[in-house]
């Protein structure tokens, strides 16, 4: 693997509880313009485009086909789409650049949770024969995981509250975040999780530009080089997994080279406070690592974009010189079933 590939630009919307006055395309277009403006590139200059989204959020088959209109795919472009978080679209684009078929890539993803009830919608991800008919919602499943952690002595409710408080305090410096500053920890939603332990429900979009080799240096003063990226999936059934651990995260991190040297920053996609506890353990992160300086998914969790935003936030810190080596993580599926880890580095200073 000889080709060096970097994140050279990142843009995101302000994440909001609802964006009913905008279509998905209207929500996405300013982000696409912003990310391209940062590099001076136009759609026609981009070698490969890849996006991530889910039809189920919009409640409409083939919703991504309309989003493509916002890209301005004329003349026709080399393009693909994953029905996953945009972090996996970035993975596909990264492999495309590795082959040498393209030198630049535009990656975007978006999700509007406001048209429906995202707690109900996510139940449709579950085993359709035995589990989905029972409609166990995403908060209830996360609560099972949180309780398992408490029972194992890995955390307690005050510690979870501290995770949430730290995240929202960090988000005070993030103008895009949906929940910021001091957020009341609130009542139980599903024991042991309180409103403060849960992510806000919101709409949002994000985009990054990738570039290979010298092209990256032309487009960005301090590119965020992708030293490795890997993702792994676990069994779907919660009964066959140890919910207090995330072996897929650990394996992905190992394959991405995360353990070769310490990182200074970690952007973790942990929508629920207890999931940060699981991920910190799987990744061996101690207090020397700045975790979720953006506020993380507890401050803004646009489904299908929140993972890509973690990579974008980690890269942006490298661009700004606030980090030299950062880890970014994305998750999918119930209780951290599928996990992606990327390791990003800036040039030595």
């Amino acid at each position, binding site marked *: *693997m000889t080709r060096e590939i970097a994140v050279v630009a990142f843009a995101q919307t302000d994440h909001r509880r609802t964006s009913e006055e905008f279509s998905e395309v209207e929500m996405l277009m300013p982000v696409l313009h912003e990310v391209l403006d940062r590099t001076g590139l136009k759609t026609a200059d981009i070698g490969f485009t890849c996006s991530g989204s889910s*039809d189920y959020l919009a409640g409409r088959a083939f919703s*991504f*086909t309309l989003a493509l209109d916002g890209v301005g795919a004329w*003349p026709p472009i*080399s*393009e*693909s789409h994953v029905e996953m978080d945009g972090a996996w679209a970035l993975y596909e684009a990264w492999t495309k650049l590795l082959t040498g078929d393209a030198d630049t890539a535009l990656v975007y993803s978006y999700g509007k949770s406001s048209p429906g009830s995202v707690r109900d919608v996510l139940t449709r991800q579950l085993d359709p024969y035995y589990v989905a008919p029972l409609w166990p919602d995403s908060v209830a499943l996360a609560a099972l995981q949180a309780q398992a952690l408490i029972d194992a002595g890995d955390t307690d409710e005050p510690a979870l509250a501290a995770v949430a408080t730290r995240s929202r305090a960090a988000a005070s410096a993030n103008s895009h975040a949906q929940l910021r500053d001091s957020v009341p920890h609130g009542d139980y939603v599903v024991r042991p999780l309180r409103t403060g332990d849960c992510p806000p429900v919101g709409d949002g979009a994000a985009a990054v530009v990738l570039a290979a080799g010298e092209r990256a240096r032309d487009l960005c003063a301090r590119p965020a080089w992708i030293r490795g990226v890997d993702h792994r999936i676990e069994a779907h059934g919660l009964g066959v997994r140890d919910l207090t651990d995330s072996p897929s995260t650990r394996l992905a991190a190992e394959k991405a080279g995360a353990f070769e040297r310490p990182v200074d920053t970690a952007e973790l996609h942990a929508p629920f406070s207890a999931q940060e506890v699981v991920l910190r353990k799987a990744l061996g992160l101690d207090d020397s690592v700045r975790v979720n300086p953006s506020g993380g998914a507890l401050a803004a969790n646009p489904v299908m974009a929140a993972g890509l935003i973690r990579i974008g936030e980690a890269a942006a810190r490298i661009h700004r010189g606030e980090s030299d080596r950062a880890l970014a993580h994305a998750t999918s599926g119930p209780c951290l079933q599928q996990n992606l880890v990327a390791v990003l580095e800036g040039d030595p200073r």
Partner: protein
Amino acid sequence: MSKEPVAVVGIGQTKHVAARRDVSIAGLVREAARRALDDAELTWADVDAVVIGKAPDFFEGVMMPELYLADALGAVGKPMLRVHTAGSVGGSTALVAAGLVAARVHGTVLTLAFEKQSESNAMWGLSLPIPFQQPLLAGAGGFFAPHVRAYMRRSGAPDTVGSLVAYKDRRNALKNPYAHLHEHDITLEKVQASPMLWDPIRYSETCPSSDGACAMVLTDRAGAARSPRPPAWMHGGAMRSEPTLFAGKDAVSPRAGKDCAADVYRQAGIVDPRREIDAVEMYVPFSWYEPMWLENLGFADEGEGWKLTESGVTELDGDLPVDMSGGVLSTNPIGASGMIRFAEAALQVRGQAGEHQVERARRVLGHAYGGGSQFFSMWLVGSEPPDS
């Protein structure tokens, strides 16, 4: 840096039928995957990653079904990617999987696409609500019929050409044990007498709704060297997309299709596709798309595609056989249909296509399209490794 050559060493399909009530979705995909692994004489442990495609999730009512299918496809502990590019998805999925091998990220990748259409109603699943689609524009046929009519007007093709394609493809399907429609009593007259659904598209000129899955094992040069049967080598592959609807769009012969084919031919060193390509597995969900795509893919000049069809060039024993397997017209598990085209192209160059084998098929094109004729994916496979 140069890319790693990509070889197809295993292919598996289910017997496509209207409804597989005997298996779950997991059972269906596992059947195809097992057959592909058996063909390659490999086990689940030999697979480094899984790339899966289908379109759209609403057909089965499962959001991101790859999460639930991880166990059934031996993906636990491995990377699993899920591709969705509308009707072209089966082809795109194979290309994403091939990219993992070409980039040397993985040595051996299992790729699979499926649809269990019996769990839904494709007609209404493909009818977007107003204002995303015009009133009374029901199903895919309603969308494509005006473009077929535009082709007929533009090319001056006689209105008998569509039925010739359907008659050919349904006869070809009789030679393919995995094909959904086996109409033993098919005649040209029966096709022509079938009810008009979306003028000018008749009932027998449309694809069925199928349950089915298709899987392939893709591997690198080292993996190909261990293959028990001849591999198919990828000589070129590309995807192109353009917007759904806009004033400059040529819905009869979209530029994205032309550009995609040109990219594949450039990679494969093809200068004259009509002479240098031996056969085509083409995505033809409505019969008239054969002559239309013959032109779009550069096998005939504009307005001349129907003449190839009419003169028998595209018959199984013709000079340029098209849809030897019976094609989408005989088998259409939508999410898998593109991958079946890619897999059937590979079967041909491996000499493994059985009764529908084309003699001396050395270079064969697999083609898929989707959305409003806006997403294209294609690959060209050969019996010999690529030059580089």
